[in-house]
């Protein structure tokens, strides 16, 4: 295919030809093209459809502010919906298609909406579709939802990777136009660490699109030379293809670098994009300005573009939007466009200038004091109607219209910390104002400085101020004409004049919004959807405000402005996630016996970020219960071993260690002898149980505290709070040793026999020498230092033995080896859970953050003779009601029945509803020891109700059964076994 609208010049590489595919047709372009410029060069103006009326759409702009030319890029799992053709860098093999149409792009069936536009006015859906009520979900909403959105997600997992990184600098310059380049150059020459970001793949900003001169060079050449100078400096990091998306607190900026979006596929090992968090002392925003259109009847046809976009296509990309182009303007900008077009040999069909004193031209017609009142061309502009100063109207043939309505400085980042821009009368635009983010200054067009010389000067000056440099650098010569603009927002008259071209918001809609009382600018936005499209109103918001101001008889600044929010341009969700996805979503913590457990074929379960062995299936076992029952029975029958490393371990040392523990535990620790361990219950200051565990006194001034796995971090934090903030001069030090010690529970009647083969002979662990709740620092396996605690979660004769983590793997293997004569059986978290339920020990399901010591049956543990955290508030009446929940055991009346956790308890007869709720089941299991299901539950006044029959209901899972209230200590309630 020939590029019929390709013209000379521009910054494209004509030595290479790229093939690409749009809507199943193949075209060619060149490196340096965008998809939009290449399509225009091929004579394609129609690139999409609008949201509501499905009107034909072509590019309005040549940049990231584009509302119209949105396409689906790539395909399959890499499909990127709503991608702006104006920013897609052309690559060989590029594939794209248009969006939001039924049937071919040129014959969109949904365009029927356009015929009914009178019925689809702003907010029409708030006023109808309400009758009959059932029709909303069945009929109306499905129809509306089908119309939702523009592009579609693939539904497939994103195959690309994303990265994140941190950067630090003295000065961040955002935008590499004339002011940004000059700011960066000034700072770089002064030796500062500089980062320069620009969203474009070619730095230079408007210099690449204009025919102006800087010094003896073209603007584009000056930009290229300056970029080359900066690139050679070691203290400068140039970041093209990088959008600074937001200004966050304390000088932290988010920036997204599109590493691979200009390639067919990311190179091996390379991410698609990187989220950079840039930490900077000073920032200069040089984001330029965005041109805005003028609304008139049917101003939304493909071919009607911003004047700046037309100049970009012609000057930078060598692509003519059409061979005959008219201009509509309220400033000298339009005449610049006409001159550039003329210089390129493109016929200027006329310059329509609303100003009566418009400059004349010999080369083309200038219609002063005139306006464009209508356009024609179903799928692309064919002609415009012009109303001349004398009121006469005539039609002018043209394939494109370049509209220049003034410039809006890109103030977005100045508002990200809730600063409000200020209205500048001479520019008829908002400029940065109010309180800017600390460390941020603004230069160039973004600050309302609209001439090239002014941009260069303000960039240099901003850098000097930011870095406290004394001397301004010498500046090259450049045009320095102020912008002369006559504010003009829309051409009054019949028909629809578009403001927001993507969402199809017209001047009429704004009028209707005002008429119906939606007069705050936020109401206008929300009622009409003005500015809520993917471009966030970059080209439409100010026009909407102007019309609202006109209607309200107010000035534009009195009407106000909506808030600019990050990100500056829409940003892939994937890049914010980086590599945290799939299995790498969170770190995985493995226990010291993990490799060994894998070798045993263990099934693992997540416990927070830990992976723990859940059970160890053996050959022939087909159901997890078989494995778990076997593990329980083997442990209770002989001996079992379980990795309990994940429990939190906190070393508490110092002469005040006991006094400190007296504060954090509700029960007393001052009198605990050295060499003994005690169960401890910690309360939150609000009197609710926080965690339980043991504290072992290894020396007068040394305790080892254990916490539950889930609360290891929060308990440590809490203890540090108590130590540093409440009792700052207690002589006590804390250190978490959770990961320093591998710890195994060895439980069962033969536990001692096994451990006697592990600990060194010098350590006497006989029942007399090392009774229940004893603890000691020991040596084992021939001199390895370790710790031994005679504590039991299973209710058996049991020990926990700890060694430095690096010996954990060796220790589990040794335990298994010496335990072989006793058929030692590894058990996982399920068997652990069964045995603790059989013993009635509380765990996470019971310590659920709402239960008190009283609820847990541990009310008497709360010492009333000393002060500890939580004691005072635990006495509140609401926590001590006569019918307070108490932990009980449940036994099914029919031994075959399950007693499922999460079920609620009701009286044996009577209504089943919330008003009659008596309690709920917290933990349940099959007890292989007792031969039936058992459960722990919280029951109102439960301690007084042993023997009562209750109805257990779980309507969610279809269970209703009868249970007997029993003691929660199902097995060996006297504890004979653990003292054996």
């Amino acid at each position: 295919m020939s590029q019929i609208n390709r013209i000379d010049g521009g910054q494209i590489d004509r030595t290479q030809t790229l093939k690409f595919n749009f809507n199943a047709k193949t075209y060619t372009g060149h490196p340096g093209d965008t998809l939009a410029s290449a399509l225009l060069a091929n004579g394609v103006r129609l690139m999409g459809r609008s949201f509501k009326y499905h009107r034909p759409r072509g590019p309005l702009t040549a940049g990231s502010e584009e509302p119209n030319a949105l396409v689906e890029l790539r395909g399959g799992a890499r499909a990127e919906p709503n991608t702006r053709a104006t920013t897609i860098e052309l690559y060989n093999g590029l594939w794209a298609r248009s969006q939001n149409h039924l049937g071919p792009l040129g014959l969109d069936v949904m365009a029927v909406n356009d015929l009914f536009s009178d019925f689809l006015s702003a907010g029409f859906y708030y006023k109808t579709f309400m009758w009959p009520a059932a029709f909303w979900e069945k009929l109306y909403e499905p129809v509306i939802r089908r119309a939702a959105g523009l592009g579609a997600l693939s539904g497939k997992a994103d195959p690309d990777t994303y990265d994140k990184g941190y950067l630090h600098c003295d000065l961040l310059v955002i935008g590499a136009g004339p002011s940004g380049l000059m700011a960066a150059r000034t700072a770089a020459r002064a030796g500062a660490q500089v980062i320069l970001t620009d969203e474009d793949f070619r730095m230079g900003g408007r210099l690449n699109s204009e025919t102006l001169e800087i010094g003896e060079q073209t603007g584009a050449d000056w930009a290229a030379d300056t970029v080359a100078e900066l690139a050679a400096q070691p203290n400068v990091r140039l970041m093209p293809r990088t959008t600074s998306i937001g200004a966050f607190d304390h000088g932290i900026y988010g920036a997204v670098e599109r590493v691979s979006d200009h390639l067919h596929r990311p190179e091996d090992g390379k991410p698609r994009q990187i989220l950079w968090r840039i930490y900077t002392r000073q920032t200069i925003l040089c984001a330029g300005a965005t041109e805005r259109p003028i609304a008139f009847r049917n101003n939304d046809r493909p071919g009607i573009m911003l004047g700046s976009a037309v100049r970009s296509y012609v000057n930078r990309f060598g692509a003519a939007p059409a061979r005959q182009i008219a201009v509509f303007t309220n400033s000298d900008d339009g005449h610049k466009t006409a001159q550039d077009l003329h210089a390129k040999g493109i016929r200027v069909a006329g310059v329509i200038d609303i100003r009566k004193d418009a400059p004349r031209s010999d080369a083309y017609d200038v219609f002063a004091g005139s306006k464009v009142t209508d356009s024609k061309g179903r799928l692309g502009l064919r002609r415009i109607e012009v109303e001349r100063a004398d009121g006469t109207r005539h039609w002018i043939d043209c394939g494109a219209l370049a509209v220049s309505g003034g410039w809006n400085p890109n103030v977005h980042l100045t508002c990200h910390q809730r600063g409000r821009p200020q209205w500048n009368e001479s520019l008829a635009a908002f400029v940065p104002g109010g309180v800017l983010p600390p460390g941020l200054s603004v230069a160039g067009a973004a600050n309302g400085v609209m001439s090239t010389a002014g941009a260069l000067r303000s960039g240099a000056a901003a850098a000097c101020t930011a870095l406290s440099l004394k001397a301004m650098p010498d500046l090259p010569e450049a045009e320095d004409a102020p912008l002369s603009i006559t504010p003009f927002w829309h051409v009054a008259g019949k028909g629809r004049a578009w403001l927001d071209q993507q969402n199809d918001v017209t001047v009429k809609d704004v009028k209707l919004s005002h008429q119906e009382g939606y007069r705050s600018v936020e109401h206008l936005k929300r009622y009409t959807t003005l500015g809520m499209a993917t471009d966030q109103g970059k080209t439409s918001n100010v026009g909407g405000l102007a019309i609202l101001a006109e209607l309200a008889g107010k000035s534009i600044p009195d009407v106000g402005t909506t808030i600019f929010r990050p990100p500056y341009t829409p940003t892939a969700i994937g890049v914010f996630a980086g590599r945290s996805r799939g299995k790498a979503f969170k770190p995985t913590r493995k226990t010291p016996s993990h490799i060994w457990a894998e070798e045993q074929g263990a099934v693992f379960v997540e416990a927070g970020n830990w992976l723990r062995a859940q059970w160890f299936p053996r050959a022939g076992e087909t159901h997890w219960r078989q494995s778990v029952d076997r593990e329980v029975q083997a442990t209770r029958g002989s001996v079992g071993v379980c990795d309990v490393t994940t429990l939190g371990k906190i070393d508490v040392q110092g002469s005040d260690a006991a006094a400190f523990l007296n504060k954090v535990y509700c029960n007393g620790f001052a009198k605990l002898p050295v060499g003994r361990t005690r169960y401890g219950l910690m309360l939150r200051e609000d009197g609710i149980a926080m965690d339980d565990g043991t504290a072992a006194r290894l020396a007068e001034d040394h305790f080892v505290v254990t916490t539950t796995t889930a609360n290891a971090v929060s308990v440590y934090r809490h203890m540090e709070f108590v130590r540093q903030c409440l009792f700052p001069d207690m002589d006590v030090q804390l250190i978490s040793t959770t990961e320093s010690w591998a710890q195994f529970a060895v439980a069962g009647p033969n536990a001692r026999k096994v451990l006697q083969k592990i600990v060194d002979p010098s350590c006497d662990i006989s029942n007399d020498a090392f009774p229940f709740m004893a603890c000691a620092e020991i040596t084992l396996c021939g001199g390895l230092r370790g710790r031994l605690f005679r504590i039991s979660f299973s209710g058996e004769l049991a020990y926990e033995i700890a060694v430095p983590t690096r010996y954990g793997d060796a220790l589990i293997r040794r335990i298994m080896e010496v335990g072989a004569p006793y058929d030692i059986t590894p058990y996982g978290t399920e068997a652990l859970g069964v045995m603790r339920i059989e013993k009635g020990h509380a765990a996470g399901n019971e310590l659920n953050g709402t239960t008190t010591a009283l609820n847990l049956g541990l009310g008497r543990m709360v010492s009333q003779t000393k002060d500890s955290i939580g004691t005072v508030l635990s006495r509140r009446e609401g926590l001590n009601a006569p019918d307070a929940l108490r932990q009980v055991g449940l036994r099914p009346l029919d031994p075959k029945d399950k007693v499922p956790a999460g079920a609620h308890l009701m009286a044996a007869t009577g209504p089943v509803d919330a008003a009659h709720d008596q309690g709920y089941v917290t933990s349940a299991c099959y007890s292989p020891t007792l031969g039936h299901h058992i459960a722990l539950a919280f029951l109102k006044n439960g301690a007084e109700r042993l023997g009562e029959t209750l109805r257990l209901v779980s309507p969610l899972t279809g269970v209703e059964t009868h249970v007997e209230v029993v003691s929660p200590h199902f097995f060996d309630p006297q504890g004979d076994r653990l003292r054996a």
Partner: protein
Amino acid sequence: MRYSGFRVIKEALTGHKGWQPAWRDPEPQPHYDIVVVGGGGHGLATAYYLARKFSQHRVAVIEKGWIGGGNVGRNTTIIRSNYLLDGNEPFYEFSLKLWEGLEQDFNFNAMISQRGILNLIHSDAQRDAFIRRGNAMLLNGADAELLSTAQIKARYPFLNVDDARFPIKGGLAQHRGGTVRHDAVAWGYARGADSRGVDIIQNCEVTGFRINDGKCLGVETTRGFIGAGKVGCAVAGSSGRLMALAGMRLPIESHVLQAFVSEGLKPILPGVVTFGAGHFYVSQSDKGGLVFGGDIDGYNSYSQRGNLPVVEDVCEGGMAIFPMIGRARLLRMWGGIMDMSMDGSPIIDRTHIDGLYFNGGWCYGGFKATPASGYCFAHLLTHDTPHPVAGAYRFDRFEKGLMIDEKGVGAQPNLH
């Protein structure tokens, strides 16, 4: 003026000249029976129900900015009643029932869309907790269903089950949950209240309370003193600031919660999904945007903006369960200020000052509560006694130890 399809057609044919303002723009009167401070969802709902259900007609709503500009205009639009505790579930179920008839009641289409909410389950303990919750919902007359992973996968085929860091072990669904066009709720209530004589006064900031002998006589505002028999404050997010003007300290902290919306996309997510092992929830609006959020930023703030770490945390959660959204673009992020209470539950109660009433502490669950909150506050303002479903939302529950703590994290507002 009544809205209807017929009316829309008639106006379309006559150039839309007949549409009237949705609410008047009245000057404040010197005295009202009841002044509601706060023109957000809860304040407007309160005014609406005062007029509609409790025969109160001398009512004003006072709003410092534009109505609907608080959290009703900046939330993630979810409605549900999947609560656990006795103090909460009847209230939220009452609210959901009010949602179900709301549009016909106030004659405004708020696009209440009951496409369901699904909480994913990732561990056995979590399943136990969700079964307990689902049972509590059913026992309170709400709906709930426990779904298997296969059932979920059939509805959400792009859910990451195979490569999940935390396995998906099912989910608790409430099919009557869903989403609502949030701004329309404020507008519908405003229009309904206005048409029943309520004065909605925008751009009128309360600068103080006139309190004499322990009795509140009205409010000082930027537009002068407005007398009132009773003053009801419903300004969640700013509760601390406002009630300080009456010398009150509240069991509430202000925190920022961020929310996010993607570019418009063709429908792909049928209902609301929440991730049980990370901080992420998402739905898709009728306009096509993925509306999502996660945890609060975690530090006290009155600034309606957040920071990057939470943005990243939320998107990580999203990618963990729906790795297809990586290529969707985040269009806009914003922040709202939450009244984070000390137990995660709200307060609707009289204050120690006669004639001054308080409604707040909604944490980040206030939107779904809007109808019931308005109804119950209107009940309290009219009768001086709490509505039965809101009886637990008392100020003194903290002193008495009667907290309503769904999450079980205690007096730590940023964890609720």
